[in-house]
């Protein structure tokens, strides 16, 4: 079974500063990795995903993440944050199940707070 660890439950960052949200995973098979963002009282929106190919993945809103197989990590980065980036961020991993149906395992989330 796979698991996801988001070490930082809360990350405060000053506006226009860079940010890195950490995600580590554990799996005995190949995985697919995702970052989702959740604004207050809303559903989740996909930021980016890694399925295969280039280990540097670019997503929406200026975010990017790098897949590091040796360190089993998929950290999310943004070079300059804005107030509007204040939200909860979830890392997730997927692996095929017995039914050929894909299930996502989520981390516990990181609350990103942008300080003006």
């Amino acid at each position: 079974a796979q698991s996801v660890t988001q070490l930082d439950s809360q990350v405060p960052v000053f506006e226009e500063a860079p940010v890195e949200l950490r995600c580590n995973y554990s799996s005995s098979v190949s995985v697919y990795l995702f970052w989702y963002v959740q604004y207050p009282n809303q559903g989740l929106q996909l930021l980016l995903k890694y399925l295969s190919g280039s280990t540097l993945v670019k997503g929406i809103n200026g975010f990017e993440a790098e897949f590091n197989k040796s360190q089993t990590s998929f950290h999310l980065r943004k070079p300059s944050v804005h107030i509007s980036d204040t939200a909860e961020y979830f890392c997730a991993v997927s692996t095929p199940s017995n039914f050929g149906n894909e299930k996502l395992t989520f981390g516990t989330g990181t609350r990103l707070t942008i300080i003006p």
Partner: protein
Amino acid sequence: SQTIHQWPATLVQPVGSPLSLECTVEGTSNPNLYWYRQAAGRGLQLLFYSVGIGQISSEVPQNLSASRPQDRQFILSSKKLLLSDSGFYLCAWGEGADYEQYFGPGTRLTVT
């Protein structure tokens, strides 16, 4: 384009009362469907998933149940709510090809 709807948006129910949350998807056929619960300050917990009409898999034993009466309709139910059932319930769909899941706006359930 595909859209996913959930209702109601918010719900306050007394302990012991029944529950029915509905999720519908438009613009796609035979999607995989999922119910998640998000407790306050915690991550997402997968409750049920379905790969087709009448096919339901439960991830966590509890007093909730799910049904899929139609291809694009997914219902979460309970006969008697517990205080611990409070939370934010999210429905999602996926086609499997790219492993991505698309989430609905959620239902906030408060059991009093």
